[in-house]
């Protein structure tokens, strides 16, 4: 039975929105988190919470991110979705591995996505990107991963076990 709407969806949507908003807190150290946490959340959802209702959340919020920050319409939804698909492709391999391997996999997959963003921007005329800002974003997301990995993995694994 497919789940279109349940408590986990609501929780994940709120979590994703809160994560996006954390980086938008003005005059705060939280502002440096930028989009790091949403990438980590996407990674875990793809691996442990596969459900057709879920891709819509980052898709819609990606458009909100574009509208609010002034980036070209469609950039962040495309980035979120490509990263999500890349992660989905690794489900069978990564679902049973340890946190260290998950971290390395996240570094690899997000690294590929960030390189993809740079490539996408390079072919677009009206978009500039700060290389230092991008490197900072990559490093913060890699550094923040272990902090979020343990609670997320625990919660989502429990959810999976309870469902089947």
């Amino acid at each position, binding site marked *: *039975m*497919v789940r279109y709407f349940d408590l986990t969806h609501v929780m994940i949507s*709120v979590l994703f*929105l*809160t994560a*996006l*908003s*954390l*980086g*938008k*807190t*003005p*005059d*705060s*150290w*939280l*502002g440096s988190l*930028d*989009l790091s946490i949403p990438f980590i959340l996407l990674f875990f959802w793809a691996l442990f919470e*596969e*459900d*057709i209702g*879920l*891709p*819509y959340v980052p*898709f819609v919020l*990606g*458009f*909100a991110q*574009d*509208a*609010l*920050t*002034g*980036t*070209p*319409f*469609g*950039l962040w*939804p*495309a980035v979120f*979705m*490509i990263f*999500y*698909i890349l992660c*989905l*492709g690794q*489900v*069978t391999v990564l679902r049973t591995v340890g946190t260290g391997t998950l971290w390395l996999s996240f570094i690899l997959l997000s690294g590929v996505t960030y390189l993809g963003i740079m490539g*996408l*921007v390079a072919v677009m005329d*009206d*978009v*500039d*990107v*700060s290389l*230092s*800002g*991008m490197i900072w*974003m990559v490093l913060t997301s890699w550094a923040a991963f272990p902090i979020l990995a343990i609670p997320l993995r625990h919660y989502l694994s429990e959810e999976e076990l309870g469902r089947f």
Partner: protein
Amino acid sequence: MARSSQFGGGQRTVISAAGVAGICAGIALILLLILPGDAPAVRNVQRAVAVIFTPIIELASLPGRAIDGASDYFAGRAALQAENATLKQENEKLRLATQFISQQKFENEQLRSLLEMELASELAFQGAEVLADLSSPFSKTVLVGAGVKDGVEMGQAVLASEGFYGRIIAVGSQSSRVLLASDLNSHIPVVVGNTHIRAILTGASDDDPILHYVMQDAEIAVGDVVYTSGDGGQIPSGLLVGYVSAAEADNLRVSLAQRNNAADFVRILRKSVPLAPERDVGSVADEDGPSSDGRGVSGDQSGP
């Protein structure tokens, strides 16, 4: 791989999560590649989405603000005492500065009355709270809580407590987006030092933007003050932008007086400087050749 899903508990497999994500990615990429970013329709859609999501983001940022508030609370008594001492010192300096400004203003008014000179325009401000920092590697912008209803218009200059902050690039009914001076797409016409060397200040995505289009023999030194020039007619002249931090021939940089992520409240200049007359009505211009409005180089203040 992703589990297949079924509608309504039936047996027919419809689509997997990867399929949904693939369709979504395709839609996003098509929109990204075919939609012109500056089309009015796109701007209207962006504005509508921003209007919907601004209060949601504001609400969702409450946990972040709470965490921030909690870290401030636990910052400790010693840190608060030190901050209090600094604030007292600054307050004393400001009192002295206010007295000096009052004297200067009085003297200025006296001199103006002697010359029978009217002020070209009186600057009016609209205060606003910074609602969200929207900066990313792609742009340096903030969302402020004042919009069309408060008289905010596109292109207006925005000041923070330390100096020039940016300018309005999108206006909603109750909020507006400010392009910071540090953004890669920010080009502000400025004057440098006492000799008023003209240049264009271009953002470099950090707190040290670059001075471009400077005359080759211009003498610029580290520490020179940088103000807005008013060229182009959108941003008034004389607003403090920053100080020259590097003065090599191939590397002219300005340290912004107002650092990027350090403003809680801003002031939006509601009235811009008077523009050139729409058309010449006198005969003087015809007799003297091409009309001049007395401005220097026309600065490029256009955004992305």
